[in-house]
């Protein structure tokens, strides 16, 4: 593990560092399929620290996540930022296949060399991202993008995984999702850095904005008060304007914005807010905190996965398992005692 790369991967790495899109495409497949050597490749790539701003878009189906992401992407491109985009769609549990259609909404950006879009299928993962989305974000970051945008599956339930993947989580809602939100409100409040009420030209939008602000207010009222220092960007103005209250809680109170992604209305405000959040993340030390948390989870994930792999690919462990099953049948053991025996052997 993490020794020198075999030659094909070394060559891929070279082309990757050289900035060839084909190499990034192939590297993502390598990681996504967990092909031999993928961890070594990631190890090489992660030598460069994270620098891209990672922005997640989540929310119920039909909220217009792709359209909004597309507007934000277009806006970033006018600032000449290099962009990576990951869009996640569900894998069919029946066939194992998937239909990935998120590119359709981004067709305006389809020939822009400054943007790289990758569609991923969940492949059985349930938290709103694919199993290896976080690794793919690392690849995009290391490839040199200034910003990486992630769109979750959006099948209805609150998709918590995005908080572990993105620095800024945008929860996108529409007036029609009003009722659905009641049930998922608590979860949404936990994960959102920014709320966007999209399709705000439709009836019920104002009401939803008000409801959300009220919900946030109630929540904030019970949080610990700590006034952050804000300068540079007029953070205070944005916070006052959007959430009708001084920033609260750990220093950031999620603003509620309105947009109409189809026409681009409200997108500039959203851009400002994203910038403000970034600024706050950096100034407050929260960004480093979040990155540290991500690294910790990654280490745990790798250990978990490797333990599992080592265990279930080892002939002695498998033999132990078989014998254990026999002993359980003869009432000499229980699943717990057998498990302890196996762990004992593995960790010794």
């Amino acid at each position, binding site marked *: 593990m993490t020794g020198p790369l075999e030659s094909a991967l070394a060559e891929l790495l070279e082309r990757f560092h050289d900035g*060839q*899109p*084909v190499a*990034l*495409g*192939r590297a*993502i*497949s390598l990681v996504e*399929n967990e*092909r031999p050597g993928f961890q070594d490749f990631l190890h090489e790539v992660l030598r460069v620290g994270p620098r891209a701003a990672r922005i997640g878009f989540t929310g119920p189906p039909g909220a217009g996540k792709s359209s909004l992401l597309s507007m934000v992407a277009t806006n970033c491109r006018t600032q000449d930022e290099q962009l990576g985009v990951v869009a996640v769609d569900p*894998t*069919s549990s*029946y*066939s*194992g*296949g*998937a*239909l*990935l*259609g998120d*590119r*359709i909404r981004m*067709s305006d950006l*389809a*020939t822009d060399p400054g943007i*790289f*879009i*990758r*569609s991923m*299928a969940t*492949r059985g993962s349930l938290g709103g991202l694919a199993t290896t989305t976080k690794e793919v974000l690392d690849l995009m970051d290391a490839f040199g993008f200034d910003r990486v945008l992630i769109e979750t599956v959006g099948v209805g339930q609150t998709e918590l995984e995005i908080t572990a993947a993105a620095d800024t989580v945008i929860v996108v809602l529409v007036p029609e999702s009003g009722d659905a939100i009641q049930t998922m409100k608590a979860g949404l409040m936990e994960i959102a850095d920014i709320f966007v009420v999209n399709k705000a030209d439709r009836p019920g939008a104002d009401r939803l904005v008000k409801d959300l602000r009220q919900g946030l207010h109630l929540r904030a009222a019970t949080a610990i008060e700590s006034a952050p220092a804000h300068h540079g960007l007029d953070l205070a103005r944005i916070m006052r304007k959007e959430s009708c209250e001084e920033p609260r809680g750990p220093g950031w109170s999620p603003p509620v914005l309105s947009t109409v992604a189809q026409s681009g209305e409200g997108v500039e405000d959203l851009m400002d807010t994203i910038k403000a959040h970034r600024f706050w993340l950096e100034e407050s030390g929260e960004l480093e905190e979040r990155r540290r948390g991500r690294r910790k989870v990654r280490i745990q994930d790798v250990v978990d996965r490797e333990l599992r792999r080592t265990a279930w690919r080892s002939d002695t462990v498998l033999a132990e398992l078989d014998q254990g099953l026999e002993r359980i049948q003869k009432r000499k053991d229980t699943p717990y005692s057998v498990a302890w025996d196996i762990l004992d052997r593995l960790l010794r």
Partner: protein
Amino acid sequence: MQSIDQQIRVLVAKPGLDGHDRGAKVIASALRDAGFEVIYTGLHQSPEMIVNAAIQEDVHVVAMSILSGAHMTLFPKVRELLDGAGANHILLTGGGIIPVEDIEDLESRGIGRLFGPGTPTTEVIDYIQDWFEDQETS
């Protein structure tokens, strides 16, 4: 379900300006039901858009549906751009309203099999699966 431990990824694309996407959608759904990951580009794609998508999505296969009669321009153009971008490993196949002589001509120029109207989707699935297995073993 496919037997191989790697997902086959296919880009289903509608190049050119014709909007007849019934075939493209039926084939996209059938490929999904056969266990493939299908990236659908949507309509009105230029060759450059298709090739960009194929590279970013790192697909094994690009399947184009053309009913506009522009096949003699579009298939070779996409092939040329794929090769130019270092993606000569990608299979370019497709279907639509294409005269038999043109199919033969295109197939002799490095384009994969082309399927006419009324082709059972299973035939397309088998073709892609066989091609993929050949690739993996060779």
